[in-house]
């Protein structure tokens, strides 16, 4: 997309001296160095405290133990089967939960955002439903759907749905009236207005919420597994907890975190693709 570099409104680009660019690169290296130092320092301190018996390893675990646990899972598999199989189960639950939750949330959000009467009728129920501590419903889903994947998917859907729903709802309501009027005058049918104006406009709200939503999908599936399952990363964590093995809990968390980071990368790519019509903004994230 950099072939389409804005020609104007990027004064920094017009007269970028090499020095500035070089400065920026050096800055990035410096930041990365500090970031790595913080990680190493934190883990090192923890390990030092554990090795010197300042903290009780059997309660708090330590990085080396966690690493060993991970290697053990990778080489010898877990009590529930190979690690990749557990990962695959959790990934599937997360993916289906995310996909179903997003589709439902976007659809309901846009419909209610556009049909005022419907939103007035349903607002009270949505508000009430939203204030239920939703993770608790995981228990009921296990009763309804059993120990397999469907109960975890249901929990993930529930978490994702509300997050996406409110953003889509807001997005559909905040659509520029001028744009809708323009589309109608250009000859757009109601359906065309929906797909050419309302949906793209709502998407700019939605995309930001998708990262959070994916995090919630992982939460839903892992917590669902903690509540009761035979497979999955949450099961590994629950097992480790049962065996009083803090390193096992950490190892489960590490794998979950890697999944979440990977997904975040994928969503960022999708965001760049879908929102390339928006002017580049200053963000806290490093430029890619």
């Amino acid at each position: 997309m950099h072939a389409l570099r804005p020609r104007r409104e990027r004064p920094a680009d017009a007269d970028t001296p090499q020095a500035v660019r070089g400065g920026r690169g050096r800055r990035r290296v410096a930041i990365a160095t500090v970031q790595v130092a913080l990680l190493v320092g934190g883990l090192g301190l923890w390990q030092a405290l554990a090795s010197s018996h300042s903290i009780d390893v059997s309660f708090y675990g330590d990085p080396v133990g966690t690493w060993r646990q991970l290697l053990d899972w990778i080489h010898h598999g877990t009590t529930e089967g190979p690690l990749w199989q557990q990962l695959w189960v959790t990934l599937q639950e997360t993916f289906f939960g995310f996909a179903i939750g997003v589709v439902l949330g976007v659809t309901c959000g846009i419909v209610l955002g556009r049909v005022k009467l419907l939103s007035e009728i349903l607002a009270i129920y949505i508000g009430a439903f939203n204030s239920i501590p939703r993770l608790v419903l995981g228990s009921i889903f296990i009763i309804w759907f059993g120990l397999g994947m469907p109960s975890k998917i249901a929990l993930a859907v529930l978490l994702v749905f509300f997050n996406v729903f409110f953003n889509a709802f807001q997005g559909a309501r905040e659509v520029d009236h001028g744009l809708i009027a323009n589309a109608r005058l250009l000859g757009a049918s109601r359906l065309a207005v929906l797909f050419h104006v309302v949906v793209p406009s709502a998407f700019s709200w939605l995309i930001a919420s998708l990262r959070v939503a994916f995090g919630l999908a992982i939460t839903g599936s892992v917590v669902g597994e903690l509540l009761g399952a035979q497979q999955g990363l949450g099961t590994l964590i629950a097992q480790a907890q049962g065996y009083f093995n803090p390193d096992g809990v950490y190892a489960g968390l590490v794998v979950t975190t890697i999944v979440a980071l990977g997904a975040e990368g994928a969503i960022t790519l999708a965001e760049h693709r879908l929102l390339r019509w928006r002017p580049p903004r200053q963000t806290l994230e490093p430029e890619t």
Partner: protein
Amino acid sequence: MESSTGPEAASPDRLPKPPPLLEVRGVSKRFRAPDGRARTALDDITLTVQPGRFCVLIGPTGCGKSTVLSMIAGLVRPSEGAILIDGQPVSGTDPRTGFMFQSDAVFPWKTVLGNVAAGPRFRGTPRREAAELARDWLRRVGLSGFEHYYPYQLSGGMRKRVALAQTLINGPQILLMDEPFSGLDAQTRQIMSDELLGLWEQLGASVLMVTHDLEEAIALADTVVVLTAGPATVKKEFAVDLPRPRSVREVRFQPRFVELHEQIWSCLSEEVSLAYARATTSP
């Protein structure tokens, strides 16, 4: 219509008049103000636009000029009176009408090409054909080479060109323009006005444009209609008998231009002062 009886009024009786393409007949519009009381924005507006004529509505800020356009476009219903296009009452948006908005109403998520092709696509033209047509229009408004840019990457003037092409590609018989060049600097405005005149002379559409810039109004129009400060009604119509084709920049130096400017300004200035006094004294 009493406003057309003055010596400098429009509709000279030399020619048999063709039937008006657009007729606004005794239209009023009342809104409910936030305090619950009804407020009359437009009061008994009557005006006609002949086929292929360029008519400009001018009046003080906030007098309801834009509402007139919205009603003709079928976006707002009049409280009273009727709006006729080709003798048929307007009900909802009409394919013969094009509207260029004051603000940028281009779709920010579509490329320049996608924006211009939107109208034909909405009206059922196949994708490839619509793109061809859009390319042709982009060439006409001087935006060749910018097909794949997004609106945010363009300057204000370029976005206006996109909006113009987007509207004209549908071949409207009536082109409604609501201060289309507001927000542009004076030079760009002049260039855009000239280009608009050029395109309009080729197309032969009727134009009804709203502005509060009197020089722009006289330079462009066949007829200038002065509206009163709210509630707006037609105060007077002026025929602009400057020769065409005109150059927006040069026409200002003609003695007749200066004369018209004097006449219309003396009519308009009372309304402007009235609107200004109201805006500054009432809360």
